[in-house]
Every structure is written in C-alpha cells, then in structure tokens.
C-alpha cells in the first residue's frame, strides 16, 4: 500500500509501562515492513503445518507455507513425518500442489525427477541419454529438509531457524491452554477429520492475530449474534460454546476469567465454564464426571473453561478448532479453519460441536464474515495515515507481571494483543540491525 523511505522499527511500538501502548499505522500498511516480517518473523518462529491425524498413512501429505516459502509435510514408509521445501532440486517446480492428499512418491511434472516419501532422490530421468548426466554429475541427495519439525501432542510445527528453542519451550504458558483443550478427550487426543473452511480478507495478517484473542469486540462486532442466541439458544447448534443467554448474562460471564500476554508473543483469554454443574448433570455428564475423576477439580476447571488463544505468529486455537492464517501481501490474508473432534467423546458431542462451528464460522456463518468485514474496514480506515497511532492501552494499569516474565490481565484487557506487538517489536528490531 505504501512505503516509508527508512524503517525505524524502534519507533513502531511505543510502551509506557502500566500506562500507554501505541502501535504505528505503518506496521499494518507498509510493504517494506511486510517484507521484513516474512523473513525475520515467519522464518524465525515456529509455524503450524498440521496435525498428526491428517497424515494417516505412508504418503499422506499436506502443503503449507512458512511465510512465503512453500513446504510439503509428508509421512514416509517407516511412519516418520518429514518437512521439505516444496521445490524440485532440479529446476524449481513445486512438487505437490494440492492442500493435502496421498502419493506413492513425489514426481516432478517438469522433467520427471522422482523423490521418495523420505525426500531422497530416487530417479533422475533419462540420465544416460546423449548429452545427459555424465560420470561427474553431483546428484542432489534429495529435497532440502526444513531445518526443524517438532510435535507438541500431535500438533506439528516447522521452523526455518535451525537454532530456535525447542517447540515445547517456545509454547511457554500457552502449553497449559493446549493441554486443557486436548484433555477434554478421555484419551487426551484430538482428530482432524474435516477439511477446513478457507477465507480471505482484505487486510494485514496481524488483524487476525489480534482478533482471535479479542474478548472486547464480541459484544459489538457480534452483538447481533448474541441477540440471536438469546432467541434460538441451543436449538440451532449453540452447544454451550457461545452459550445462549441474555446480553447482560453474556457480559457478566465475560467479566470472569483472565487474559495473558506471553513473552514469546502468544496470547490467550480464558473464561471459566458458566455452570460446571450443568456439564456434570447434562447430556454428556458421564464424560465430564470421568474427566473430573481423572484430572481433579483444578485441572477440570481448566478443561471446561472457554479459552481462545494464539501461538505467535500465525496459529490459534479457539472453540473446537485450529485456525491458521497466511499472509499473502501487506493487505491480504488467507485463513484456514479446521474443526477438530475430541477422540473418545460420544459421536453426538462431536456432531454437536461441528454444528456449532457451521453456525458461527465459515463464509456463511454468523460470525466469521463479520470479522473479515471489520478487517476490511480497518484496512480502509488505516489509509488515513495522517493518524499516527493505534491504541492498545486497555487494561495496562491492571496487568500484572508474572515471575515467568509474562503478563496476566483482567478478562477484557488487551494483554493478548500486546503480546503480539511486544514480540513483533523485539524481532523487528533484530531485523533492522541486520538490514
């Protein structure tokens, strides 16, 4: 959209501790800032690429992006999952283009080179033809492996930074949120069976990062949905997620709980279950009672809490879904929404959760389209570049610094949004040092 002649990211985020937190307009609109983000954030963080259950058999693959670099994640014949740059070692064509599928091998359509499921070069076609490859030909051993691939409880992340800290340590305080979500399963596992919703919006990727953990917008952007819930309640698939109550009760419920700004850039908001007794005595009471017995009261409160979270920079867990967003340009972003199933839960539970996803998310749902519409309006508004700053002060005075170096805020604090910007500023400062 615009370019600033010299980037001084040191002045893009302005924080006066306990008082003020401002972000410069160009952080969302400047193409040079975007270029720096692609290399210095998306190639130096852990990027979510899929869940183990999406790789059911040998040859199961998914394509993904780390920033703008295309990647293929694939299960080999020994059952091991590997991540490679999705590019033929010969002359560069992408090997696999579908979002996911199953193959016997990776064959380049351009000149017929073949790589096996473990990425090794298996065939250099017409090798001995006249003018082919001679005795001194240095054959590439195989596809270039993405430096790091790690799993946390089945969630697969890659990083282009060979020296990055281990995934489990990178996730930090957010592990508690992931654990609680997965421990809703009697066997501690989730399954991705549904293909994702795919949306795009006209706006910067950080609008999605901010919004997925934004408790503040719900009663406004989604105010009409709150009214709809009050009228239709569970009957159309509410399923206790966005619990259908009056606007006043919804508001009160949202004033419980906490927000977190994690030092790695992750953020989350967590609200305790409105009525745990309702869960224990309800349709799925047996499942909940067994969870209570297994985990104890404190952990049970975490498991039944409603948490919305983001793993810096581009993955989130909210409701019963995994969400991934991919920057396409400074003002265009693609969002993938994967509903997941709770392994071991009754079929009716997972079916009900899926209905509730259909009700709110997807291009015809009652929520997602409102968010992306607002993102487009923000993008439009930010063209008023005469206004220098966006304001992220909310809850600054009540956030508390924890011993771990994170911040814990009150329920409607903008602490989770500040998490993004603190990490962003830190990484972008490094970028300008290297520039």
């Amino acid at each position, binding site marked *: 959209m615009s370019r600033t002649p010299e980037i001084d990211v040191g002045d893009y985020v302005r924080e006066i501790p306990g008082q003020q937190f401002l972000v410069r307009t160009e952080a969302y609109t400047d193409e040079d800032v975007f270029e720096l983000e692609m290399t210095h954030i998306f190639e130096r963080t852990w990027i979510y690429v899929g869940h183990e259950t999406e790789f059911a058999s040998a040859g199961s693959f998914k394509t993904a992006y780390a920033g703008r670099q295309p990647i293929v994640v694939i299960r080999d014949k020994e059952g091991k999952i590997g991540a490679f740059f999705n590019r033929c070692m010969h002359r560069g064509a992408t090997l696999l283009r579908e979002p996911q599928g199953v193959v016997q091998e990776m064959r380049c359509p351009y000149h017929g080179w073949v790589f096996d499921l473990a990425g090794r070069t298996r065939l250099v076609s017409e090798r001995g033809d006249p003018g082919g490859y001679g005795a001194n030909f240095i054959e590439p051993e195989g596809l270039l492996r993405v430096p790091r691939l790690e799993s946390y409880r089945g969630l697969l992340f890659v990083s282009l930074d060979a020296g990055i800290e281990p995934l489990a340590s990178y996730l930090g305080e957010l592990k508690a949120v992931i654990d609680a979500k997965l421990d809703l399963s009697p066997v501690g596992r989730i399954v991705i069976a*549904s*293909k994702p919703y*795919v949306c795009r919006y006209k706006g910067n990727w950080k609008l999605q990062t901010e919004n997925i953990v934004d408790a503040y917008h719900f009663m406004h952007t989604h105010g009409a949905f709150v009214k709809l819930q009050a009228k239709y309640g569970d009957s159309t698939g509410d399923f206790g997620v966005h619990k259908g109550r009056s606007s006043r009760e919804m508001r009160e419920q949202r004033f419980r709980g906490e927000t977190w700004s994690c030092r790695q850039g992750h953020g989350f908001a967590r609200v305790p279950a409105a009525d745990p007794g309702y869960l224990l005595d309800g349709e799925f009471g047996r499942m909940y009672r067994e969870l209570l017995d297994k985990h104890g009261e404190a952990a049970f409160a975490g498991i039944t809490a409603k948490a919305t979270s983001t793993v810096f920079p581009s993955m989130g867990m909210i409701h019963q879904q995994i969400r991934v967003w991919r920057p396409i340009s400074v003002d265009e972003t693609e969002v993938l929404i994967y509903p997941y199933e709770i392994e071991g839960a009754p*079929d009716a539970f*997972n079916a009900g959760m*899926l209905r509730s996803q259909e009700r709110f998310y*997807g*291009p*015809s749902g009652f929520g997602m389209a409102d968010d*992306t519409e607002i993102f487009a309006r923000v993008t439009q508004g930010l063209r008023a570049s005469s206004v220098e700053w966006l304001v992220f002060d909310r809850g600054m005075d009540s956030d508390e610094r924890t011993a771990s170096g994170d911040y814990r805020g009150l329920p409607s604090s903008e602490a989770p949004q500040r998490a993004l910007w603190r990490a962003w500023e830190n990484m972008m400062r490094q970028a300008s040092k290297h520039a």
Partner: protein
Amino acid sequence: MLQDITQFIYREARLLDDRRFDDWLSLFDDDGLYIVPLVDEAPPGRQAAIVNDDRMAREERVYHLVNHWFPAQQPPSRTLHFVSNVVADERGDLWSVSSSQLIHETRGGDWTQVGLGEKNAIVARVDYLLRRGDRGFRIHEKRVHLLDRAGWQGNLAFIY
C-alpha cells in the same frame, strides 16, 4: 411437468432476489434441508459444511437477515439469480432436479469502500429434491455445489 418444475425454481430464485425471505421459508418441507457442502464426498457427520440448515436454522438465518444489523450485511446484499440447464427426473415420490445457476451479488453504498459496489459472481450447480403435494411443490432439499468450493470464499452472509 418440466415447465411446472422450472417455473417453481424460477419463483424460488425470484423470492430470494426480492428479499421475500418468509415466503422463501414456506417453500420448504418441515424436514427439508438447505445445504452448501464444502467437499463432495465426506464421512457423514464429520465434515463441516458452509450451510447446513434444517427448518430451525433456516428460520434463524432469515430472522438474522431481516431483523439484525451486523457488519457482513451492512449494507445488505442484492442478488440476481440466472437459472438454466434444468433437468428433472422422477425418483419415487420426489423429483430430482438439477440446475445451473449464476448468482450475481453486490452490496450498495459508497463504492469507494472496501467490499461495497463490487459485483461478485457465484457459479453453482444447484440440485433440488422436490416433493409434489396438494399445494404444489415443496423443497425437500436444496443443495448448492459452488463451482469454486475447493478454493477460498469471501463474504457469503446472505441466502443464495
């Protein structure tokens, strides 16, 4: 019979274009389904759909569109359906009807605003299961196969 069926589908499209949503609701059987699948072949109960509306969900959708202010429909969409290639086969007590539909959608307002004044084309094969009763046809199922269902979607927060 084909003419009756075609007229019925034209009228259904016209009700949507005219935003006569309550009349549109009354075209459906009580156990009718309005569905927009995301993928063609899916394990039952395990795949999210774009729209998966039984009677109550259809009523909710119409109530929301007619009575509420919400960002995705402010201002509201206008549509114009073009229906063609209608093929009808009798199947038991139902008529199985296939059609090609080109649905132009736009939202009015200030055309300099992002998303407004743009003409979007939805291309779909729309299949119906129609039940013939005393009061004419009723929709037992309306299934919209978006041509670009494998790709990304924009704002589809209206009835199409």
